[in-house]
């Protein structure tokens, strides 16, 4: 975009949702399901988690009603990954003739992504950008980000340098403000600017901008107790390959793969080949896999990483060390999802500090 227009104020989300739906997008955003904030298709802002907030800590997640914010919670188990890199997707079908690739990339607007989620998308772009199917799904996204107001006790985006304010990689970004409740909205792309211009909006005042800066300041301060020094971690983790700490972590880790499933950057997949019973056509399905599964490294009937310690070492070392070798950046964006959803409550930040 040539010039950054001033942010504007929106009083409600419904006009945005409607405009995106008229624009041909399925609108996906947060909603409360079974006591958890999940992404789902939304038809109106009434389905958003207004007045809900979360309490997250290692191995624990609880929602409770508090305040008036729509986006007053931290990372949910879902992320953009579900839409750019679906849990299960058919790659092709083959019925004698040419092999037909399949790509399902419906135009999708994602509402409520955080700065860490945008950073995770950028990480994924570098890992999976060579895949035409990924590029098609990625290009079909319209991204509405929200500046994080209430990081949880497991968040550490400030340590990873990815948040809490959305800086780039969105079409629209909102800062949710209270008293009175309103959204300060800014565009990050031409099409974002067009949508924004067509919505009912008011001009913002310096006080609105100051209130938005306060949101980010408060959020940053909340993560201060958890801040750690990233410098040197790549080399330190690589040097710890034979550390006894891995065995100790493995004594708690259930190798359940929850951490890799909720992680917005974890990308590993496997394929399932089979034949469609209805018409006999051969087909291939790609689905998420995890370096924690026993057979992940199978070679001649035996896995290379047979022990839990080796599998945990692979996961954490990839995020903080070998990812840098491969892609020039960390594979972790500091969202804390893997900490919250680990049934054993293993906190990778604590484990990293023990390994250094």
């Amino acid at each position, binding site marked *: 975009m040539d010039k950054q227009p001033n942010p504007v104020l929106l009083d409600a989300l419904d006009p945005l949702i409607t405009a995106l739906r008229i624009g041909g997008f399925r609108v996906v955003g947060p909603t409360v399901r079974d006591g958890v904030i999940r992404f789902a298709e939304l038809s109106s802002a009434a389905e958003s988690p207004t007045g809900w907030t979360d309490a997250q800590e290692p191995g624990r997640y609880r929602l409770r009603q508090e305040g008036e914010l729509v986006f007053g919670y931290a990372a949910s188990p879902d992320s953009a990954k579900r839409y750019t890199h679906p849990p299960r997707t058919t790659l*092709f079908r083959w019925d004698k003739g040419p*092999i037909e*690739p399949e790509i399902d990339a419906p135009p999708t607007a994602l509402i409520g992504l955080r700065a860490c989620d945008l950073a995770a998308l950028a990480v994924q772009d570098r890992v999976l950008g060579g895949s035409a199917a990924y590029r098609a799904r990625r290009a079909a996204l319209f991204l509405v980000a929200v500046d994080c107001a209430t990081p949880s006790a497991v968040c550490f985006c400030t340590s990873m340098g990815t948040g809490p304010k959305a800086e780039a990689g969105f079409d629209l970004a909102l800062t949710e403000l209270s008293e009175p409740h309103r959204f300060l909205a800014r565009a990050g792309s031409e099409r974002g600017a067009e949508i924004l211009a067509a919505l009912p909006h008011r001009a913002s005042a310096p006080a609105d901008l100051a209130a938005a800066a306060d949101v980010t300041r408060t959020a940053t301060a909340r993560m201060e107790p958890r801040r750690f020094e990233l410098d040197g971690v790549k080399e330190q983790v690589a040097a710890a390959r034979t550390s006894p700490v891995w065995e100790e972590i493995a004594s708690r880790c259930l190798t359940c793969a929850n951490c890799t499933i909720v992680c917005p950057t974890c990308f*590993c997949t496997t394929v399932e080949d089979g034949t469609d019973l209805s018409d006999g056509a051969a087909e291939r399905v790609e689905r998420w*896999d995890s370096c924690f599964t026993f057979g*992940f490294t199978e070679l001649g009937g035996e896995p290379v990483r047979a022990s839990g310690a*080796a599998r945990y070492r692979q996961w954490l*070392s990839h995020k903080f060390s070998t990812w840098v070798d491969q892609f020039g950046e960390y594979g972790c964006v500091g969202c804390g999802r893997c900490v919250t959803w680990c049934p054993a409550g293993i906190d990778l930040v604590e484990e990293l500090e023990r390994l250094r």
Partner: protein
Amino acid sequence: MTLEMTPIPYRVRSRRADRAESVTLTLEPAEGLCPTFEPGQFTMIYAPGVGEIPISISGRGRFGGYVQTIRAAGAVSRALCRIEAGDLVGVRGPYGTPFDMGASAGMDVIVAAGGLGLAPLRPVIRELAAHPGRYGRLTLLVGARTPSGVLYPRELARWARHFDIRVTVDRPDDKWQGPVGLITHLVDQIAIGPRRTYAYVCGPEIMMRATADALVRRGVPAGRIALSLERNMKCGLGHCGHCQLGPLFTCVDGPVVTYDHAAPLLEVPQL
């Protein structure tokens, strides 16, 4: 749109059952020409409806296409071994880093193969045999479990014109008169000019490490020993994550790597 995970139909032009409990197929695209390959590269071969596995390219067929040797190890390789001439399979690739043939120009070359490791080395051997003047002394060391487990026996006889060939087996039969035991013993027996030697090694991981260590002990620099790593692979594109070995995606940063890079990684158990 061609999609990188979508195989291209190839027809089985010919099929030969080897003595060594493997099957050698020549595969040609059902339409058009197959892409060029370099020694050491592999393709992902798809048995329709069953699965897809990495298989090295062992050469070009007499009328084009890829020659590939497959041993029945599990579900997919068994299905591929059962396939008949005229049948269709899917192929993606070629993928992976090649054996660097330029790196050994002007040097003595040792090729060391353990078992099926001879399959990816066949194009290396043929390249060396085709241009003997380009290289110094050529040595081929082959290790096999049994005498009948030695791959490509007829070609071995032909290669003997250019190579000093030594074969060792784990389990000799009544007729066997050659060496018995590890391929590293062969390394210890041959004359090596360490400063002008380059080695291409492929076989089971423990065989490759033992062979490379034996060469290093004889003074060959680790950077002049090329190995072909084997890891579980689902995509060949660096996308599925399965083949990682420390910083390497074995499918794109390998399979061929030099031992100076591989040794510190292979040394760590279960990396």
